[in-house]
């Protein structure tokens, strides 16, 4: 992919239609806009190389709003996992539909929502080893090959986590406390 293409397909938006409530405006149903000051929204093509950029943006914003340093690795991994999962789902079922990430710099909580537009449950990621290699009995991820390792990591990692799957897509909501708000000092 070219740099120009990358720039086009990873476009932070100035505002979402209907914000801050976030209802409507073409978003997936069920997306709730958390209350906050100045949310950042990323919309990017479902390409693996963009996941890293989303991670970097999330960590930069988390640091800026005052999430404690000890949690930044968790933010980085969790946002990466959620975005990787969304990329996998879209590449399998909706390769032309962008993934949307909402990052909200709330006063007491840094909230992240990763929205995919693929209905149904987890779909094996194209870049993974494949379901056969992930289903070994000694790997602890089940025999059916349908287990989602990314969700397993998220559930083990993030205390403030909500996963919503609907007929029109899925939303992973995560949050971390803001320990030292940037606006307080």
């Amino acid at each position, binding site marked *: 992919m070219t740099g120009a293409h990358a720039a086009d397909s990873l476009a932070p938006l100035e505002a979402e239609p209907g914000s801050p409530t976030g209802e409507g405006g073409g978003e997936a149903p069920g997306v709730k806009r958390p209350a906050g000051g100045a949310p950042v929204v990323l919309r990017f093509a479902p390409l*693996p*190389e963009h*996941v*890293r950029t989303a*991670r970097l943006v999330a960590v930069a914003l988390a640091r800026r709003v005052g999430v404690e340093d000890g949690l930044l*690795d968790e933010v*980085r*991994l969790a946002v*990466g*996992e959620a975005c*990787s999962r969304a*990329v*996998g789902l879209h590449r399998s079922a909706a390769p032309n539909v962008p993934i949307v990430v909402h990052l909200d710099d709330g006063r007491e909580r840094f909230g992240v929502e990763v929205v995919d537009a693929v209905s149904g449950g987890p779909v094996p*990621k194209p*870049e*993974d*080893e*494949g379901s056969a*290699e*992930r289903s*070994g009995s*000694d*790997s*602890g*991820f089940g025999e059916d090959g349908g287990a989602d*390792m*990314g969700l*397993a*990591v998220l559930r*083990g*990692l993030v205390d403030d986590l909500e996963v919503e799957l609907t007929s029109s897509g899925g939303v992973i909501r995560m949050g971390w406390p803001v320990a030292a708000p940037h606006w307080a000092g």
Partner: protein
Amino acid sequence: MDLNLSTRHEGDRTVIEVGGEIDVYTAPKLREQLVDLVNQGRYHLVVDMEAVDFLDSTGLGVLVGGLKRVRAHDGSLRLVCTQERILKIFRITGLTKVFPIHTTVEDAIAATD
């Protein structure tokens, strides 16, 4: 940060030094390396992860795939890792029970099943 890979042979053991980020974008490169080594008949692998800055579930999947490949040839795949943030991911997923994890490359090379 990209993924950096280098390999060296120590007897029948092959040490793969991994540096950088193992994620959905870079994991295919690691998978290709592991597959190549197995295809070359290298069935006892030591993956040195001390220089890994980031690991996600896609990377875990590649390591599990590598383990299954070498085990099909009665081989082994051992990890070297002392970084807490990386070890945490193995603990969360229960993979500490699947992979032998060593603190030094020397220990991993000397270990036997």
